[in-house]
């Protein structure tokens, strides 16, 4: 039996198969579409990962790599009774190379722990998803995670140089180079963001970034969210490249101010814009003035510059505590993710708010405005079937609105199982077919994280004859 084989590989304690143990692994941060895994293993090293993959292959069972389970698109949700390969015990920072500004890490290393381990050398790991306190680098690699500071510093794909990957047939392959230059196909670039469908990453060489000379953080208060979006457009067009440009809207401000994250934001504001500038000290004073001016022109009623680190943290608390604070508004939270051209933000935001109103939903916006990455959040109660239906319908309408504005349906959360059936909004059959070529080159039998990325019926049937189609709407 597969479970016995898995126990023999990872040990009794690192193999979970009882119902009450498995329930925890039924879903990731997308809780609407859970499914029970066949088993969960927590391998302690690469060789155990290899053995687990081979045992799954022998048993004809699919498998899915999982990090901390903070993903928001169902990327780590097991399908077809897949075995979950939980990477939290692969948590060593294998080495830090200060001179070459790289580190070799295992997938279970927590994002923020890497920065903590290297900040004494004046370095940091740039991609900073909101969940960076708990999310792991393996999951970040799978999803090509972004974060507030990816506006200037780039997303995960810009910071991964090399990978050690266990292929779906159990072979181990080294991809990329610590120099960042490869001769041949950019397979590292193809694997980053492939949502755990091309193999299991067991180590990564990542780039470390020198800490900036100075950081300035501004908080601009606007009468409404549309004028804050206009300010973002003006800043982008001015040639400034802030480290972060984040918008928090009125409803989110209220939720934050009612919560333990209260940051002293004005409750009568329509939106606040957080602008972070970093770089050489002598450049920042003029940049701060320029942002102040542009924000004022766009209608800001007040612009504050953080006087010290405590104040800077206070500004960021409003942004980073937003998701937690929304827990106060309703039992369930649906965090949407889509991208539009930055210049289209004002009109798209208006449309998104109108959609929320039309469906009578509590919709709040807190998002990476600088790269046009919207996060409309809908607070709801899943026990109310009518409300759930409206959440689903509004979500789809929001995606269509963003695509119509020249945007895409996910900027950093991934397609996962959540949006697989919306891929057709962006891509045609021929486009998806070319993506299947990539999938098939790594995983011809479709056993590695099945039921993700590609639209349901056809791919499942094609790639895994044993898989059943998922008719359920993924929202």
């Amino acid at each position, binding site marked *: 039996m597969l479970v016995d084989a898995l126990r023999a590989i990872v040990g009794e304690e690192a193999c979970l198969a009882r119902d009450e143990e498995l329930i925890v692994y039924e879903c990731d941060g997308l809780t609407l579409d859970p499914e029970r895994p066949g088993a969960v293993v927590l391998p302690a090293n690469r060789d155990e990962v290899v053995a687990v993959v081979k045992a799954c292959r022998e048993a004809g069972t699919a498998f899915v790599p999982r990090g901390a389970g903070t993903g928001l698109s169902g990327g780590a949700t097991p399908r077809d009774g897949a075995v979950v390969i939980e990477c939290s015990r692969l948590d060593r920072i294998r080495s830090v*190379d200060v*001179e*070459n500004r790289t580190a070799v890490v295992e997938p279970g290393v927590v994002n923020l722990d890497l920065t903590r381990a290297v900040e004494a050398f004046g370095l940091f790991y740039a991609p900073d998803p909101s969940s960076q306190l708990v999310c792991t680098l393996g999951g970040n690699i799978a999803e*090509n995670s972004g974060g507030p500071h990816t506006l200037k510093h*780039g*997303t995960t794909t810009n910071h991964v140089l090399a990978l050690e990957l266990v292929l779906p047939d159990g072979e181990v392959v080294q991809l990329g180079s610590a120099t960042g230059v490869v001769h041949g196909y950019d397979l590292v670039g193809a694997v980053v963001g492939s949502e755990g469908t091309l193999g299991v990453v067991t180590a990564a060489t990542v780039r470390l970034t020198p800490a900036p000379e100075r950081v300035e953080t501004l908080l601009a208060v606007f009468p409404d969210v549309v004028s804050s979006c206009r300010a973002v457009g003006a800043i982008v067009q001015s040639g400034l490249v802030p480290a972060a440009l984040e918008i928090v809207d009125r409803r989110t401000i209220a939720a934050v101010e009612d919560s333990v994250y209260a940051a002293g934001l004005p409750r009568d504001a329509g939106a606040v814009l957080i602008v972070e500038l970093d770089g050489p000290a002598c450049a920042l004073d003029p940049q701060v003035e320029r942002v102040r001016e542009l924000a004022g022109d766009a209608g800001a009623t007040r612009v504050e510059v953080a006087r010290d680190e405590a104040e800077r943290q206070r500004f960021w608390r409003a942004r980073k505590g937003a998701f937690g604070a929304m827990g106060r508004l309703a039992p369930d939270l649906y965090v949407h993710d889509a991208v*539009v051209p930055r210049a289209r933000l004002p009109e798209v935001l208006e449309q998104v708010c109108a959609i929320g109103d039309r469906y009578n939903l509590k919709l709040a916006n807190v998002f990476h405005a600088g790269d046009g990455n919207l996060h409309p959040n809908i607070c709801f109660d899943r026990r109310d079937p009518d409300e759930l239906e409206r959440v689903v319908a509004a979500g789809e309408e929001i995606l269509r609105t963003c695509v119509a504005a020249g945007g895409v349906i*996910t900027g950093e959360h991934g397609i996962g199982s959540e949006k697989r059936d919306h891929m057709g909004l962006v891509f045609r059959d021929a486009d998806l077919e070319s993506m299947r070529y990539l999938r098939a080159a790594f995983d011809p039998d479709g056993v590695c994280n099945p039921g993700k990325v590609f639209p349901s019926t056809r791919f499942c049937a094609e790639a895994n004859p044993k898989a059943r189609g998922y008719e359920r709407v993924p929202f």
Partner: protein
Amino acid sequence: MRPSIAPDVLRGLAEAAGELVEHAAIVVDDVAFGASLRPADGEALGRTLEALSAARIPVVVRGNASRLCLGNAPRGAGILLDVSRIAGVLDFDPGEGVCQVRAGTTLAAVQSALSGSAWELPLDAPGDGSTVGGVVAAGAAGPRAQGYGAPRDVVLGLEVVLASGARTRCGGRVVKNVTGYDLCKLYTGSLGSLGVIEALWLRLRPRPAAARAVELHGHGVPQGLAAVREAARSPASRAASLECEAPASGEAFRLVVELAGDAPVVEREAERMGNELGVVETTGAALEEVHGNQGGRPGEAGLRFRVSVLPSKLAAVVARLRGAGAAVQVQPGRSLVYAFFDGTDPAAAWEASTVAAQLGEGSALLEAAPTSAKRGRDVFGAPGAEIAIARSLKERFDPHGILNPGRFAGCL
């Protein structure tokens, strides 16, 4: 010279492409091409590839033929597929800082379309008349890639015509996107072996408020190397190059740095480098000359290797390459060493570059050389275990092997 393709097949191809021109031979690694198919748009390109696939006729894909020297010798190709007519800037969105161009548009044409705007095209691979499609397909970058990022960081979306003739898209026009697999990464630098780029969405960079060039002439290669590494670390440095002649000509070096960004930073850094390194102001022309040299080679028989190394190994790598008689250009910001050999002993040049790459924990690519120096070798270096995946990709994207057969890494 007529290609050795049956006349009726050739007629069919000409019809599909809309234009077939015969021309003086264009020689790619001793293979002479006397004719080019020249589709005018994506639709014609799709028809052409479909017809080529059906007739199993391999092609070498070209833009303006400015870097046909890159790659292994073509296998069995009878005709060129020239995409330079598929040109033009389709869209430029100054509010967003992105543009969409057809693959055959030259870098110069894009820069000129952007002139007067607040944005610039962050691609600076040297080469007269280089096209955007060619530069991205080759993954080619110039010295400013230190500040700009590599082509993989510039490409937001691609329209690619596959060998089957299917016109496909990946990525998009927005600056952040994880919708579907990132095939843009796979196509960028794949030398047209998986598909032919038809159009591209590119991320532009804000034009810097100030830019200055500084240089330093000196003696002693290790000193020059230390200075250029220091210069490349400056927050204002967007390109830093060190040139050293072959050892036979002495130990002189020339260091050129381009500083760009906000005016106060550029001024501060120029002054600091003047005080600490002794650099002096120079002209844009000097800068362009050194940047152009990256793509140069010493005469027709010469070999040019690009060796990528860990920054900590630069000195050892430079010493090894110069020890074998090479002139070098070092770009520490990209951790690259360009090695120029005069071609009198290609085997020794290969040996030195391979050893240097191992020493630097990186890799060596033979960018330009006479065909005789390429024979029996893979110019991209010996492939590793990942070649099985590469082969599998090639078989799926190009099942009949019609796209640049033999030319890419692993002679795919």
